[in-house]
């Protein structure tokens, strides 16, 4: 997974940066943004291999971010993992309908999210590796 690009969209800058640091330890190249509209813009502009997306964002929520990505040719194949603090599954169907590939509960443990991300990318990423974006 060395050099694979991951975009983290989380409204908590500290969590986003900590998660980016975790992913970088495992060889990923991580970029962070803190709102949904920036998430859509950066994802379409830089075409990361995967996006880790918080459900709760200050402008549009994570499901809406995914829906907008899927409606654009540049974002339709990107692997998307949605994070949410909701323990129930009320958002699950809405997320899957929007094209979310994987759903993970917050709080997440570091090794668990890396494992899920690797599985997600192995199952969905067909594009060849691209140079890291910084």
């Amino acid at each position, binding site marked *: 997974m060395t050099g694979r690009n991951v975009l983290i969209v989380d409204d908590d800058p*500290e*969590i986003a940066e900590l998660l980016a640091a975790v992913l970088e330890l495992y060889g990923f190249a991580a970029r962070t943004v803190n709102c949904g509209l920036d998430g859509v813009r950066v994802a379409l502009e830089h075409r990361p291999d995967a996006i880790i997306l918080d459900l709760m964002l200050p402008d549009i929520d994570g499901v809406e971010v995914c829906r907008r990505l899927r409606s654009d040719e540049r974002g339709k194949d990107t692997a998307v993992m949605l994070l949410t603090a909701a*323990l129930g599954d009320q958002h699950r169907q809405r997320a899957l309908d929007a094209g979310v590939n994987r759903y993970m*509960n917050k709080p997440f443990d570091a090794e668990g999210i890396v494992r899920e991300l690797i599985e997600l990318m192995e199952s969905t990423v067909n594009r060849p590796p691209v140079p890291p974006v910084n």
Partner: protein
Amino acid sequence: MLVGQLDAERIAKAVEVFAREAYGDRGLPNDRRHLLEIRGCDSLARMLSVKGVERLKSSLANRLDGFAVRVGRTGYPPMKMTILPYGDTSDFVFGVDTHDRLELPPNAPDFEEFQKVRQFNQQLAGRIERAFEAAGLPTQASMLKDFLRRRREQLEAAGGTA
């Protein structure tokens, strides 16, 4: 032992930390002071009998249930302290549920006002979680920091990368 590695004393301490941020130096208002009864609870059943404490049932078979304590804040009583399982581990972390997820269309009359409330809640939640961490209580951020520190030490000792 009450909830994973968290005992009643630590949960009550977290309530006090939350209340200090949410209500200022006067701490919990009178109608929430009973939450400190958690300190004396010697079982999960007893803690769940305290008014304002609830179990958050997990929909995942392999995941432990979480808990919420309705501490509230000045002007917004529904805000909650959460005690949630940390991933697939047996650890728990403290956090904040702002309890303000409401699907309001942008043209709704209260939309702007509610956005301000949500923004305030989010900022307060951040302050509370930092205060938890400063008090030595586990949070999502503190667990990630601990992991990074341990992992870097392991890599340094091994002289390589992941």
